[in-house]
Structures are given as structure tokens and as C-alpha cells.
């Protein structure tokens, strides 16, 4: 059952990525909106985990997700303000946000070890998908060099998060 929900989530993220790939040339305002939305989604998931988990390792992972993703988003906001760019909602960011609500509802219905495992599984899949989108779509399309550089640092950071989540999941097995 849990496996199914995780797999469904991965599939929907994969379709989001292909949506991004098909998108006719995303502009910087749209890329900024996608990156910011992706960060907020992980902060929200981390807050939920901090409410629900009793596992110290899951807790410290969630604390790190909350602090790292908030920090990157703060920097992203400062950057778009400086560049006078207004982040622009688009099909990819809306799709991400919609899926995040579904994922959150699923997670809310779980508790204990079931919750921990589902949260960490989602974190693995989510970071994997976001990293793939950064690598293949968002970074190559970004025009402004500061935005590109921020996304590149983000990718290095989120790859660390992915490895961390994979280790956690491995320990649960």
C-alpha cells in the first residue's frame, strides 16, 4: 500500500518533469516560481514531519530540510527583488503545488513508523525529481547568471538531501 503511494507520487513527478521539458522555453520569472514553489513544498512537508514524528533521526532530517529550504528561498526572494523580477505562476509550478497537497493529505492520515517511512520515501522521490528537473530543464533554461548560480548551488544542496534521505530509508529497511 505504502509502496503504491510512493510509486504514484514518483510517476506524477516524472510527468511534471516532462511537462517542464515540453514547456516552450521557460523564462526566468517562471523558473524562479517553480524553484520557490518546490522549496516551499519541502518546508511544508518538514513542518508536518516535525509535528508527527517521534524518531530522532527523522526529526533532525526534517529540521535540516526546513532550515536549508527556507534559507534557499529567502535568498531566491532577495535575488528576484534585486533583479526586479516578479515570479510568474505557470503550469509546472501549479502542477507541483497540486501534487504536494495530495501528498500532504496522504501523509497526514498516517502515523508512527508508517508516517516516518512514507515521509522519507517521499523525500527521496521528491528530491530525485526536483534534482532531475533542475539539471535537465531549470538550470539550462535560466538566463540570468545569478539565478543560474543559485539553482546550481541548490542542486548541489538538494543532492546532499537526497543522499541523506536515501540513507535514512536504507536504515529503516
Amino acid at each position, binding site marked *: 500500500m505504502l509502496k503504491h503511494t510512493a510509486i504514484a507520487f514518483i510517476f506524477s513527478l516524472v510527468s511534471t518533469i516532462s511537462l517542464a521539458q515540453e514547456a516552450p522555453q521557460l523564462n526566468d520569472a517562471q523558473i524562479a516560481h517553480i524553484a520557490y514553489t518546490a522549496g516551499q513544498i519541502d518546508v511544508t512537508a518538514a513542518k508536518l514531519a516535525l509535528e508527527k514524528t517521534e524518531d530522532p533521526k527523522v526529526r533532525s532530517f526534517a529540521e535540516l530540510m526546513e*532550515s536549508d529550504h527556507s*534559507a*534557499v528561498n529567502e535568498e531566491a526572494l532577495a535575488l528576484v527583488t534585486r533583479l526586479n523580477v516578479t515570479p510568474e505562476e505557470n503550469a509546472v509550478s501549479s502542477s507541483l503545488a497540486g501534487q504536494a497537497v495530495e501528498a500532504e493529505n496522504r501523509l497526514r492520515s498516517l502515523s508512527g513508523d508508517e508516517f516516518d517511512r512514507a515521509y522519507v520515501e517521499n523525500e527521496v522521490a521528491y528530491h530525485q525529481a526536483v534534482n532531475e528537473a533542475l539539471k535537465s530543464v531549470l538550470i539550462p533554461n535560466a538566463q540570468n547568471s545569478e539565478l543560474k548560480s543559485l539553482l*546550481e*548551488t541548490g542542486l*548541489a*544542496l538538494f543532492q*546532499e538531501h537526497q543522499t*541523506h534521505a536515501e540513507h535514512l530509508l536504507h536504515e529503516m529497511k
Partner: protein
Amino acid sequence: MTMSLISRRTILALLAGMSFTPVFTVRAEAQLHVIEIDKMKFGAAPAGIHAGDTIIWKNADLVKHSATARDGSFDIDLPRKSQDSMIVKNTGTVDVYCRYHPGMIMTLVITP
């Protein structure tokens, strides 16, 4: 009287001897090294770090990091956009990593 004269001579002789054959050398000055962390990477390890030197760890990055010695000799927490310093104590090769993002690594070589 005689004794104290002899002992004074002995001491003078010893001091004279020491000045020609020093038993240890004192390094001129403890140095200051800065290692900057940015974009999820430690900066290059400075060359010529000696025990007694000071390292300033400067976190210029977006997120918090740590400079943590694998051998447990130091563990410095670095909030984003902050810096902290330490005096190098142990000598040898020290592997350093970030506790929060363990893929970030560097190696310090510290000589006496």
C-alpha cells in the same frame, strides 16, 4: 662563595653552549589562515598550516554548515553567513566534513 662562582660559570657555559646548539626552534609567528565555504564547497586547504596557527572558518554560503574533524579534534558549527575561529592543536592529516552535508569534505595537513 666558591661554589656559587663555579655554578655561575657552569650556567654561563651552559647558556653559551645552548646558544650555539639550540635544542629547539621557536617559529617566528603563529599564522592566520582563512578557509571559506561557499556554494556547497570548502575552499582550498591552505598550505603550511602549523600547530598553534589560527584557522578562520568563514561560511559565505546560503545554508548552515559545520567544519567537523573526522578524528573528533574539532567540530565548529557555522550558521549561514557567519565565521568562527580555532587554534590548531593536533598535527597530522585531518579529514574534515560538514555534519549537515557529509558529501562536503576537505583535508588539512598540519605540521608541528
